[in-house]
């Protein structure tokens, strides 16, 4: 039997709202990508029938729009939580403004991406590279909401979509907005592939229980990492 005994502590990293946000977001993105892909490339599997007997494509679009509203408000909520949540969910983790964050980004690239160095990454929450990538995805979320609701504004009299009516003229027509919306969908697909792989990778290599941390909220962190975290220099807000 191979086993190990090392001093570890359980750390409550992801609070309940962050976890709920994560899974609602995951569900929305999945539904939005599948329905969005269908809207862009509908399956023409029906022939020889009459329009009044069917409504499947309308239903697909309906699901897409409903998920978009959920996605949008979920995103707004997460942005709010970035200002009131715990230290791991705060906004300053995501924007690399400090030198030490950039240093960690380079370290993560060396250790986890290229695997040329076997130093330890001390982060308890997200590492700096992951956080920065999440920041970029937030920007893409924003663009996707802007372009999506921009197109939706033309077929709605509701207050919220009407707020986005300026997007289409700004971009010079629906065609450009639709094109951008479609291209950005691919960034979600590519992100999901890498994201899911990296969860497996980190759980496999670091054995801190990162996968289940998004369910239970707790991670196993080595004592010495926590010690270094508590003694970190004041000028670096990064955990």
């Amino acid at each position, binding site marked *: 039997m191979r086993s190990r005994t090392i001093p570890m502590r359980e750390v409550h990293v992801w609070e309940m709202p962050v976890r709920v946000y994560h899974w609602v977001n995951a569900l929305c993105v999945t539904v939005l990508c599948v329905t969005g892909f269908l809207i862009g490339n509908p399956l023409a599997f029906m022939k020889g029938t009459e329009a*009044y007997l*069917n409504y499947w494509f309308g239903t697909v679009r309906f699901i897409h729009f409903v998920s978009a509203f959920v996605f949008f408000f979920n995103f707004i909520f997460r942005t709010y939580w970035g200002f009131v949540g715990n230290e791991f969910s705060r906004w300053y983790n995501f924007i690399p403004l400090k030198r030490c964050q950039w240093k960690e980004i380079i370290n993560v690239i060396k250790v986890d991406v290229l695997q040329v160095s076997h130093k330890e990454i001390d982060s308890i929450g997200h590492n700096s590279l992951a956080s920065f990538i999440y920041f970029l995805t937030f920007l893409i979320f924003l663009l996707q909401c802007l372009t999506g609701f921009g197109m939706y504004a033309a077929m709605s009299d509701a207050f919220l979509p009407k707020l986005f009516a300026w997007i289409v003229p700004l971009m010079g027509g629906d*065609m450009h907005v639709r094109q951008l919306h479609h*291209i950005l969908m691919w960034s979600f697909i590519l992100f999901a592939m890498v994201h899911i792989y990296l969860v497996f990778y980190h759980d496999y290599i670091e054995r801190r229980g990162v996968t289940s941390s998004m369910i239970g909220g707790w991670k196993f962190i080595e004592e010495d990492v926590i010690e270094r975290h508590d003694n970190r220099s004041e000028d670096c807000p990064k955990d």
Partner: protein
Amino acid sequence: MKNKQPSFYEEVRGDGISRKDFLKFCATMAAFLGLESSGIGQIVKALETKPRLPVIWFHFQECTCCSESFIRASHPIVADIVLGKISLDYQETLMAASGVQAEEAYKAVMAKFPGEYIVMVEGSIPTENEAYCCIGGRSAKQILEEAVQNCKAVVAWGNCASAGCVQAASPNPTGAKPVHKVISGKPIINVQGCPPIADVMAGVVVHLLTFDRIPQLDALGRPKAFYSRRVHDTCYRRANFDAGLFVESFDDEGAKKGYCLYKMGCKGPVTYNSCGIIKWNDGVSYPIQSGHPCIGCSEEGFWDNGPFYQHLPSIAGFGIETTADKIGLGLGVATAVGVAGHAIYTNIRKKKEITNAPESVSETEAPKV
């Protein structure tokens, strides 16, 4: 009347049009403009009492399809009273005068009706080298700039004058620009389409005359009465779209049954126009009804958003047929390969670490893998 101009009504009566036909025309226009029934009375009164609009109609870099469309308006009275009388002032294609007389006619309008005349423009204006479009020894830009100085409003006919159309498509050798990018400070109405629907053109003229102000415009300067809804939303094939019934090639069963042309590259879902309602050639048909996808001719840059028969525009720099999906799929495969490679390497490394690890470790410094 200070200038003793005959009214529209007097002109058409003189041309032998009956009062009944005149009223029919007014009612049609009121309907197109989306007015309530009292609006018909307003139009009748305006056309009976107000002097006709002095108009200067320019042709710059264009194909005259706007004029062609106009003279095919569904109601003959449109062409008769509006276009017929416009030619009295200045309209390069249709006026009888030429040379010096023509130039004098248009100068006379500017001198006689300052602040009252309407400048109507067909075609884009070259800016790369103004010499690409010259009339009477002066460039399009010079002519336009002079003409708009004292005008009441500018009507930009068609895609050329509203967005540059094919001349402004990449690489745009003449530096063609639409009217609103060349002049400023005057109200400009973009009557979009390639060409615009004749009845839409007539409706805009009637609106200007009846209400003495420009119609309500959308954010791209198009009259809302005609351009506030997408071709897709007013399409008689829309039910097929919602039902998921699509034409997949021009000779399949779906095409014969009149299914939705979305997958054939129809730009109806991204195009604002009233083709689905007013239709063309006296309401006979419009492209989709004739089995052809909409090409989006009332939208900015529609030539560069091709190919016409492809749902998503090609992405520049990747070849004509390359859409976002092909690039996305390629990147997806590349990512999958990268992930697989990374995973294999990680496993080799990890395996080594596990085999090298002692049987049972109870130290604080366990090997980190």
